Each structure stands twice: as C-alpha cells, then as structure tokens.
C-alpha cells in the first residue's frame, strides 16, 4: 500500500528550512515572500476582475448583436482569469466582493469608463497588448501556479489583443466619425499607459524573486507594437500626457468606486445569498 501523505516537495522543504530558527511571533523570513507573491496575484487578478466587470457592462448594449456576444466572451475570459488568480491569493469571492476600493491593486487603465465602443477598444488594445507581453514572460516564472496560469491565459489574451487591434484599425481607417472616436478613445486612455511600466518596491521584489518579468524590459517592444497598430489605423500617434500613477497602491480614480458599488451590491446586501 502506498503512503497516504503527499510527497514533500523541494519548495516545501526550503520553506520549512527558513522557518526553523524562529518562534511563532518572530519575523519568519518567509512572510515577505508570501506578501510579494500575494501582491503580484492581486495586481493581475484585480486587473482581470475590473476589466471583466467593465466589459460586462456592455452586455445588452453592444453596437451590434455579434459585438455584444464578442464583448461578453472577452469579459468571461477575464472573470475566469480573475477567479483563478484571486482564489490563489486567498478566498476569491471575499476578495472580489468584500474588499473596499483602497485595497484594490489594479492599474488605473482597466477601471476607466467604457465611453463609446472605440474608447472601450482603445483601452482593450492598450491593456491586453501589455497583458499579453507579461503573460508570455510569466510562463517562465519561478512560481509553478503563475507559470501554469500564464500558459492557459496567454491563449485567451492573444485573441483579445488581436481583436482589439482589428477594431482599432477598422475604426481608425473607417469613416471620419469612427476615426475621430478612435482618436478620442486613445487620447482618453493614453495617460494611464506609463503606470503599466512602473516598478515599485513590491514589483521589484517580485522581479528579484523571479516571479515576474521587469516590464521595463519590454516597454520599447510595447510602444512599437501599439505604434504599428495606430499607424495601420491611419491615425496620428497620441501626444504624451502627464502620466497618472497610483492604482497599484490603491490610489484609484473615482470610477472604480462606482464600478465596485454595482459589482459588490448583491453579495454585500445579502451575504448569505446563493445561486
């Protein structure tokens, strides 16, 4: 008969080794590792959750039936990613529905309002192009969950990135009105791009531990990829604006609170509700 206990993995042994010389109330040395990993999971998970909720707002309001279904599919992909990430960070439902706005770690870009369809597609292009580049690199993460997550999600996000580029090109290179709306959509979201490449203390710790890539390593690649789409869309490159930062530290725009009010209303009002 085989032993009923699971095998002890090398990473478990390493964790136990670090804990050994400490008492229960001493700093353990492992806590920073857990905190850094959790923060990374929350950043990626909150990005996916908030952007998924935003796209879900289109449901029933899409400019065409086919586009409505398409946007709902994108939203469901993102909510699925958020479920995996937040459940790895803790209790996913509690994190999604019982946290206040200051505790959310998403970037400011994903919480920006939908505006019109062009503004939504501009936001989706700018975010998913970045997300795609991150996920490609997270497949090499030192963390097994993160690696496996990235392998699954990168296929979904490849589609998101391509679809957003297709629409940017069609609207930009479409009618006078569609080009104007696409330009305005890109302008609205442009000031939130620098935050994607910000490396704060927590991010640096994740990079140092091999959990996550340094986004600055692919900023040029990102800028070139976006510029290529905008050029194919026959639009002018957006002017750089004063960068707005702070989402990763919980300093959000007013838009996130309104989004959470809608998203969290039901489980907060009826905490025992099941469906």
């Amino acid at each position, binding site marked *: 008969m085989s032993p009923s206990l699971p095998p002890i993995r090398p990473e478990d042994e390493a964790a136990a080794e670090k804990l050994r010389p400490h008492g229960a109330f001493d700093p353990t040395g492992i806590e920073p590792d857990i905190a850094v990993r959790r923060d990374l999971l929350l950043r990626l998970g909150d990005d996916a959750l908030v952007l998924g909720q935003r796209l879900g707002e289109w449901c029933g309001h899409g400019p*065409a*039936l*086919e*586009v409505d*279904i*398409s946007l709902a599919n994108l939203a469901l992909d993102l909510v699925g990613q958020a479920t995996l990430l937040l459940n790895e960070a803790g209790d996913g439902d509690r994190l999604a529905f019982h946290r206040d706005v200051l505790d959310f770690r998403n970037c400011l870009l994903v919480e920006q309002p939908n505006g019109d369809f062009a503004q939504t597609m501009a936001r989706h292009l700018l975010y998913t192009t970045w997300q795609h580049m991150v996920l490609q690199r997270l497949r090499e993460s030192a963390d097994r969950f993160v690696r496996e997550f990235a392998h699954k999600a990168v296929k979904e996000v490849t589609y998101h990135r391509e679809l957003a580029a297709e629409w940017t090109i069609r609207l930009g290179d479409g009618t006078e009105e569609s080009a104007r709306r696409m330009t305005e959509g890109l302008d609205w979201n442009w000031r939130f791009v620098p935050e994607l490449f910000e490396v704060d203390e927590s991010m640096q710790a994740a990079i140092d531990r091999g959990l996550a890539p340094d986004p600055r390593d692919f900023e040029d690649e990102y800028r070139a990829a976006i510029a290529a789409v905008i050029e194919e869309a026959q639009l002018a490159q957006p002017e750089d604006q004063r960068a707005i930062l702070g989402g990763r530290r919980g300093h959000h725009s007013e838009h996130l609170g309104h989004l959470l009010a809608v998203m969290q209303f039901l489980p907060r009002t009826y905490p025992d509700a099941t469906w």
Partner: protein
Amino acid sequence: MSGDWPLWEVFVRAKGGLSHRHVGSVHAPDAELALRHARDTYTRRLEGVSLWVVPSAEIVASDPDEAGELFEPAESKIYRHPTFYDIPDEVKHI
C-alpha cells in the same frame, strides 16, 4: 449598425475527419471580422476545430418553386439506397 454589414454564412467542423456543417450566419464588415464573430457566436462551447465563413450573397440557392421537378423524381427510386447489402457485424460506422 449590424444592419449596414453584409451577412456571412458560418460553417463549423466539429472535429477532424468530419465535414464543415452550416450552423447559422453573422453580420460583419469584412471576412476577417466575420471569422471572429463566427468564433464568438458559434464556437463558445467547444463546438468546433475549424470555421468557414462565406458571403451569403455568394450562395446560389435552388428555387423552391422548382422543388417538384428537382427532388420528387428521387422519391420512387429506392434501389438507389444501398439497403440490399448484408453488412458484416465487424464493420462499424456505416
């Protein structure tokens, strides 16, 4: 908006070895987006491994008024069905 877009007929291959089957139609401004709309509308539940889209305007259809002369003559010709052969039990999928 979708009223301005041409209609495309969608065909899905459920798995390798099977033929593409007609499943419905989508509106889209061009072929590339028609494929993406078809993917999002008709393959959300793992229905397929391959997609075709064809402009609906390019489909040449038979005239329902000619159904009599086109199809009824086949009704009385049961000898065209291979029902007079004994199939060995070992032969599957026929």
